[in-house]
């Protein structure tokens, strides 16, 4: 199996290298075929791996590939750990990536229009784009297949790099290169915590290998970490919180979420692949992978849950106030990531991963469908200029509707199973903060349905508000674009139904995820689980379903019924709650605060240290100052060297007299 696993990661890398370095020579078709071939191989082999696990009783694989270095008795290795968690992840990542690769052929077909004519950076941009997304696939696969913290960090930073390159793909746009720098730096704040967490692991476990660390963790559960003098922190809590800070960066949790909405500056295929389906879920995956550590710290679990629920609720609210089609979906992603995170905090890791999987399909679908609309709208992303698009783009319309239904948790659709499970799990959790989380997540269902159907109705129903030229050209996108939508729509509907039993309540994750008995909320839920039908029927009696229905109802009334009659209705409603709208429109002021406090603050500190420290004190006083002092002293002494003999004679005589006097007196 080692060769298969190696092929899974290397195939996209080879595709990326060929498309990246020889893009000009092999041309557009060469680049997309090469990378699609690479990712296609990965997808097939990943599905084969899943099949082996499901039907053939495949053993867990844990072996090094090569030794990165050995220092101070710690062996730093590159290696693979493939268990069922990994198998699920690689299947999702490679499949979504393949869909995005195919879709990109259509989306980037006219990319030269996005560049100034004379710009050489745009030349071969098409090939470069394929190279980047293939490189991303490689990095993400390395991340999820790692068997140690070092490679995890490698993958972690590599996906960050590709995300940086892709957000800023259209590098001539100021907004794009602002967004990618912001994304990288905010992620680095998270990585700051992450690397400290890894350092703590390396110090106390003397190993970075997952299984070694997990095996030894219970022994160290009560270890204390010296902080200041006698005060100390619990080691496990510290490690888990530090690692989670990394996850907060990558998975865009409050307060490190600010980069994700701006990342929409990148081309839509990568919004789907990187900023919805895969990279942003790396944090969720990481925490699930580290379940043996998190189980040892209830404080950390609480922290995770509160952050997750806060993100889920408050970011969903912002989605209501957005008018850019991609940004609405982006805030929805933030909110859904919050749901996953909250599940982790409730020790329902399996539910978090389950939602990660269903979300990967339906959110990739929503982004790609939104991208399809954007193509048809000639890259106008403002939903106020859309409307009635369903008539022109049937495939896009139906698949977008399917994605929306999955997102809001329509009974039977994939999102229904995963979201319901999360809410139930949080409800059952005893960890501090679970009450708070449960309330926010439950109300969040209403918000989700509201913003989702607001978007849906405004875009696809009502009056056609685009200008005549655009309307005239409005038509369904080519097959290369809509076929991936259909292929993603299928799992968006059925994947929950098929997999809920083994993944949530079966033993699918028994090798990969450890849950302490007192935290095992899913086992508790499992006792009441009697098949999919019963789950669906039970869901119909629960608050989330009625809240979702209410959200749909309000959206239908306001954004379909009223909006069709009077497109200014939203504005009027907003004016009634102007203060709330202000708060949401400014995104609670995070951006402004960070901009003023951290960005401008750092520059201020830098200027002060440079002007005050380096130039005024060190150079001004000490260096040039001492040079000046020497100079002045020399000036002074120079006056003694008059060159007149009688001056020297007097000095000699005076000296003689003084010396004589000293000798005589003493």
């Amino acid at each position, binding site marked *: 199996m080692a060769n298969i696993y190696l092929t899974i990661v290397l195939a996209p890398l080879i595709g990326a290298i060929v498309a990246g370095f020889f893009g000009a020579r092999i041309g557009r078709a060469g680049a997309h075929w090469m990378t699609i071939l690479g990712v296609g191989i990965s997808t097939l082999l990943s599905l084969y791996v899943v099949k082996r696990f499901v039907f053939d009783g495949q053993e867990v694989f844990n072996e090094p590939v090569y030794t990165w270095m050995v*220092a101070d008795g710690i062996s730093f290795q590159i290696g693979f750990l493939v268990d069922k968690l990994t198998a699920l992840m690689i299947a999702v990542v490679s499949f979504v990536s393949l869909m995005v690769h195919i879709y990109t052929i259509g989306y980037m077909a006219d990319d030269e229009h996005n560049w100034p004519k004379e710009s*050489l950076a745009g030349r071969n941009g098409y090939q470069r784009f394929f190279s980047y997304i293939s490189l991303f696939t490689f990095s993400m696969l390395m991340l999820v297949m790692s068997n140690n913290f070092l490679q995890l960090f490698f993958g972690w930073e590599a996906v960050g790099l590709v995300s940086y390159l892709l957000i800023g793909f259209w590098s001539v746009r100021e907004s794009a290169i602002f967004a990618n*720098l912001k994304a990288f730096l905010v992620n680095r704040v998270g990585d700051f915590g992450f690397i400290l967490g890894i350092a*703590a692991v390396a*110090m106390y476990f003397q190993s970075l290998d997952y299984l070694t660390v997990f095996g030894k963790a219970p022994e160290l559960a009560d270890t204390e970490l*010296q902080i200041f003098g006698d005060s100390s922190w619990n080691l496990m809590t510290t490690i888990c919180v530090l690692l989670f800070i990394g996850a907060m960066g990558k998975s865009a949790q409050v307060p490190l979420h600010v980069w994700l909405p701006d990342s929409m500056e990148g081309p839509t295929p990568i919004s789907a692949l990187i900023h919805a389906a895969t990279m942003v879920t790396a944090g969720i995956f990481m925490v699930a992978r580290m379940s043996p550590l998190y189980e040892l710290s209830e404080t950390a679990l609480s922290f995770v849950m509160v952050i997750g629920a806060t993100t889920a609720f408050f970011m969903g609210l912002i989605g209501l106030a957005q008018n850019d089609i991609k940004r609405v979906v982006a805030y929805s992603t933030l909110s859904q990531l919050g749901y996953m995170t909250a599940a982790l905090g409730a020790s329902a890791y399996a539910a978090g991963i389950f939602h990660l999987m269903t979300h990967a399909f339906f959110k990739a679908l929503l982004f790609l469908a939104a991208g399809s609309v954007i193509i048809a709208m000639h890259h106008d992303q403002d939903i106020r200029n859309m409307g009635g698009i369903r008539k022109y783009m049937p495939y896009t319309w139906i698949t977008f509707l399917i994605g929306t239904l999955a997102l809001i948790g329509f009974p039977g659709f994939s999102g229904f199973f995963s979201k319901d499970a999360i809410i139930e799990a949080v409800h059952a959790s005893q960890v501090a903060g679970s009450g708070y989380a449960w309330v926010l997540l439950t109300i969040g269902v209403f918000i989700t349905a509201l913003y989702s159907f607001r978007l849906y109705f405004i875009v696809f129903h009502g009056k056609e508000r685009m200008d005549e030229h655009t309307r005239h050209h409005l038509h369904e996108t080519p097959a290369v674009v809509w076929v991936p939508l259909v292929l993603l729509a299928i799992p968006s509907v059925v994947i929950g139904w098929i997999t809920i039993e083994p993944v949530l309540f079966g033993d699918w994750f028994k090798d990969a995820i450890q849950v302490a008995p007192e935290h095992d909320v899913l086992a508790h839920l499992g006792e009441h689980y009697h098949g999919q039908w019963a789950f669906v029927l039970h869901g119909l009696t629960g608050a989330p379903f009625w809240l979702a229905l209410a959200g749909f109802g309000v959206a239908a009334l306001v954004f379909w019924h009223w909006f069709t009659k009077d497109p200014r209705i939203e504005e009027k409603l907003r004016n009634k709650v102007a203060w709330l709208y202000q708060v949401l429109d400014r995104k609670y002021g995070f951006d402004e605060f960070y901009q003023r406090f951290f960005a401008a603050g*750092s520059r201020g500190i830098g200027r002060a240290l*440079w002007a005050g420290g380096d130039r005024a004190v060190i150079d001004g006083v000490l260096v040039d100052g001492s040079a000046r002092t020497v100079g002045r002293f020399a000036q002074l002494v120079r006056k003694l060297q008059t060159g007149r003999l009688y001056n020297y004679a007097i000095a000699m005589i005076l000296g003689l007299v003084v010396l004589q006097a000293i000798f005589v007196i003493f």
Partner: protein
Amino acid sequence: MQSFPLLSLTIWLPIIGGIAVLGSGDKAPGVSKWLALAFAVITFLVSLGLWTGFDAGTAAMQFVERSPWIETFDVYYYLGVDGISMPLIILTTFVTIFVIIAGWEVIQYKPSHYMAAFLIMEGLMVGVFSALDAILFYVFWEAMLIPMFIVIGVWGGPNRVYATIKFFLFTFFGSVFMLVALIYMYFQAGTFEIVASQPGLPSFHGLRLGKTEQILIFIAFLLAFAVKVPMWPVHTWLPDAHVEAPTGGSVILAAIMLKIGGYGFLRFSLPIAPDASAALDWLIIVMSLIAVVYIGFVALVQQDMKKLIAYSSIAHMGFVTLGFFIVFTILTKDTATGSGVLGISGGMVQMVSHGFISGALFLCVGVLYDRLHSREISAYGGVVNTMPLFGAFMVFFAMANAGLPGTSGFVGEFMVILASFQADFWYAFLAATTLILGAAYTLWMVKRVIFGPVANDKVAALKDANGRELFVLGSLAAAVLVLGIWPAPLVEVMDVTIQNLVQQIAVSKLPGAVGPTVAAVRF
């Protein structure tokens, strides 16, 4: 033992080559350049013999050469390398090749003199790394300044006189104290040998010095090495020197000369005055952390690309000294949490890696400067639109400078952060801020210079990097990548030497003392 004099060859080949290049003159253009390149390449190939013939299983000096030089003062021509100096020698010979190529058609004024200066400097720097006799070391150490002084003074920018004087006075100020310390130790040991040529014979490393003497010697060395590294607050010569130096001068300065300071700590301060090092380690740690944080902020607001990279060098070198001096804090803790080897290895890897990365970044600025004659960030913008290949390299090296895993920049920082966590949570906390600060100052520069729309007509008229420039940048990129993906060979080569060093400094060298260093004195 006296086998083929490989080290001598590595030292004298470029020096003789330099003289030959000087002799070839500038009448026939091209001759001097090709001659210089030939000597640089041959020297590099010769120096590779040090790597292939190196026995990584011993901490003893290898390739030793020893013959009397000034017998009245017991001065020997005594050379040898161990796992610490050997990689630095290869780094020197490797980088010199690219400095020669980088100056190819750029240097119009007396190119033969320019090339000769770098070749001679190369030999002298190899001499510094391989000298095991204190006087020989001192001679190379001071002699090395002269070609650099000339390079900045002759081919430098408009403010070069201030910069050269500052550079010279700073470094000279440091080294006179070192000379005093060396002479003092000669009177104590009766020899100038730093490492004993045979076990049992007296040497600087074998000295047992009292507490006060150790402290004084430590401070004397600190003055010399801290200026070289440079450590805060004696760093202000570096940005000025870099800004005025021609590209090649900056590259050598950043890639090699700074490393001599770090090397000095390992060769002299730690093994000769371990008790003083243990007593004063807090001072170095504080200075290092200030370098990382304070200088990180200062780098953020630089308007001049070379200054920015110079400040970034200081911050990165902070990791080196931090890695070297956390060893004592780690040793006082439980043995289970590491031995201190990780930090020192990390510092060494950081030095080698920084040699590649800072060298490459200065070359990148050189490429731009040659075209636009400005180093101001604001003079650029959207360079990638006219120089896509160059832009790719600049982004790559910027990422390496920001410590991205997979590049060499990550390896050293990672090791030092891991090691400093073993020493103290807050050391690691402050050191890890480089993840944010390093990325901020480097990538913000990249954003303003490389990305964005074409800023002005001059940028619009830029021509992409030519084959020569691409070759230079590509070679360094390969080095950065290889070391980042597979650092094991480098780490292994140093490992035994560093283990030996740690063992040596863990034991007190106070007269009569037998216990560990740290127990002896702390104030």
